[in-house]
């Protein structure tokens, strides 16, 4: 298996497995409704019935953490799928065709790349408004410039590769070149970059929701949990502690996995 070839990848796999097992175990043992409220339990600390305590509306923090992790993963996954899809379509085509199309796409990407991704996301979130769909679109738009440059670079190097030129000289059409040479060449690097981006995108979601620009109640994400935890930081620090540890662990696991994948696919390391 490609990932397990490096110690980094193995560490990532181990951490991911531990996280998944912990979340699955918690979901099985604590079948609590993340939206169920009991004002009498507001801000109670960890107990047997509520292992991570309750928030200001008496909702179980553990149940909300499980639900929030799922939501954040879904949002990050969808946003990256959209960003990668748009990146491959625009960057890949621009790099492969070249000429004026390439110049237009590159200038647009350069323009957007001039802004920090989080600033871009904040502007997009303010324009699109709050909500889950808007958040997916916001994060996809913010990630697009880096994806498009990456895809364009890969397409450009494939187009000028000797084996692609040779196949063209032998009479292969453009469709053949795209299907047999371009896509296989870009798939691996694009997947690795997307995997590496999951952590930062989840953190961006958390930041935007923490700022009130993200998803809205009753939906819950790691970002909304951080926002609620920050509001009660002094008096109920247990609210934010569990969430920040989870975000950090996920970001670490995803980065280790992606790094492991990159090392596994790197021909120089074989």
């Amino acid at each position, binding site marked *: 298996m490609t990932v397990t070839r490096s110690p980094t990848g193995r560490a990532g796999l181990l951490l991911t497995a531990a996280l998944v097992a912990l979340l699955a175990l918690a979901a099985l043992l604590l079948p609590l409704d993340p*939206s169920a*409220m009991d*004002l*009498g339990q*507001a*801000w109670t600390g960890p107990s047997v019935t509520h292992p991570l305590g309750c928030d*200001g*509306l008496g909702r179980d923090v553990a149940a909300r953490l499980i639900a929030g992790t799922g939501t954040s993963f879904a949002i990050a996954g969808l946003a990256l799928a959209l960003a990668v899809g748009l990146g491959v379509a625009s960057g890949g085509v621009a790099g492969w065709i070249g000429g004026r199309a390439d110049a237009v796409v590159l200038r647009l990407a350069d323009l957007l790349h001039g802004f920090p991704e989080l600033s871009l996301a904040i502007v997009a979130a303010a324009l699109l408004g*709050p909500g889950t769909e808007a958040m997916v679109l916001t994060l996809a738009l913010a990630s697009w410039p880096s994806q498009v440059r990456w895809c364009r670079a890969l397409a450009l190097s494939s187009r000028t590769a000797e084996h692609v030129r040779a196949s063209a000289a032998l009479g292969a059409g453009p469709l053949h070149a795209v299907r047999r040479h371009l896509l296989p060449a870009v798939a691996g690097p694009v997947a690795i970059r997307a995997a590496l981006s999951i952590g930062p995108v989840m953190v961006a979601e958390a930041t935007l929701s923490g700022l*009130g620009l993200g998803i*809205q*109640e*009753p939906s819950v994400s790691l970002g909304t949990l951080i926002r609620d935890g*920050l*509001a*009660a*930081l*002094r*008096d*109920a620090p247990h609210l934010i502690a569990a969430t920040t540890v989870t975000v950090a662990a996920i970001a670490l696991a995803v980065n280790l996995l992606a790094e492991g994948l990159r090392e596994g696919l790197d021909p120089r390391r074989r």
Partner: protein
Amino acid sequence: MSRIMPLPAVLRLLLTFLAITAGLSGATLPAAAGTLRAGLSDDLTTIDPFAFPGLVSSGVLRQVYEGFTAFDAAGNTVPALATRWETPDGGRTWRFALRPDARFHSGRLFTAADVLWTWEHHLTRKPQPGYSAFYLRGVEGAAALRQGSSTTLAGVEISDPHTLVVRLTEPDALFPLYPFLFVDRGMEGEHGPAWHERASGGTGPFRLMSWQRGESVRLEAHAAYWGGAPTVDAVSLAVLPDTNTLLARYDAGDLDVATLPDNAVRTVVRQPRYDGQIKAFARAQVRYLALNQDLYPPFRDRRVREAVGLALDRVATVNGLHAGRAALTNGFVTPGLGGYQPDAVPLPPGDPDRAKALLAEAGHDGGRGLPPLQIAGGPNVREEATYFAAQLTAVLGIPVGVRIQERAAFVAAINEGQEALFINGWTADFPDPIDQLATQWHSASPTNRTHWRNPGFDRLMERARGLADPVARNALYREAEALLRDQAVAVPLATPQFVALVRPGVTGVVIRPDGTTDYHSARLP
């Protein structure tokens, strides 16, 4: 004449050393004696007394400028710059006797000419009239002055420097209560059009000394204040919008008074370290869950509106969300405002089964035919909106979401009628129920955010405005409130009190029902 003894060299050295170290650590030393230190929940939007101030700026400007009358701590009208006001013709003409001993911060005497100058400036201000132009619309000649066809306000007569007669186009019993801020007419000539950035031009107990944008405001005592000089020398207000920072600064001893945001009250009152330091004050505010019948057609059916109210457990929020520092009534006026006492109509308890039955009667059994719905609000009502959304989801049979926006965006959205269901509130600008009734429910009011219209209600408000007798006026207000209740136009919600942390030994700090903190009688330990 006493001879100054030369200080021994060692002592001088010691004093020099102390002075240097004090200078180096000046930022962390306690404030100078006599300066009361408090927090501001946000930065000021303006210090121009002619611009619309908003709640935070208004709280500061009211320390500096005054009107004819003011709020007292119980929500009643008390004289400020007018000592007497009377009407010989049922509110069409008003004669004001002005305080003869009131002086501006410049030292000049306050006179009727300052009142007239302030009003004319509001009406002729460019590019937009001053915010008090709304209250002056009924003064004879106000329209002509605004349009430029006249150069003076014809409806104002000054018989002597301390007597002013105002003629209105129609009776207005509330004219003496309007929250004017009278300005020293010499300021513009001395300091230019932006005089308010350079000088303090009011008669209030404090003069505005500085405003560091986003950081702080400094007020200094007006020694010649007609009500007696304030006890403290100065008030230093730090802009602290973040609750954690506000509390950290209070805990560190940097603040004497910390007014708490509503959504922080219940976390703070749980802390034993604040025992004896929590002060609560009544608030002249109405709060309600507003239903826009234009935007959400099912709300046109009274049964649906009633069902929304019955779906909610509002009583639980008084303790559960406001730690008991809130008042909940079944009405649309703050009891006691201007002496008003509403009819005692108990709040119907939450009854989800009855709510479901009403919805079924209206043809919406199990949520059938109900479009998607969200409770909108500003960031300070997030928990309350989430709590009510869960209860509405359970009763209506459709998922009810929450839409929290930044405050300015939320206010813009409800002013433009873009929200169907939202948490709204209105704090009285002057002590009379009409400020909570007409502003919210009169069909011509720009702040009627539900767009509810009822000609009968409008007539009640117009009649009340012309009644100088408060007893007769209050009878009409009770009738208007009964109409709002009968129509189930909105769902009254608990109104939180103003709550502040006040350092032990600090006395006399009062938050008036309109949200203005009164520092005039404040004393430091």
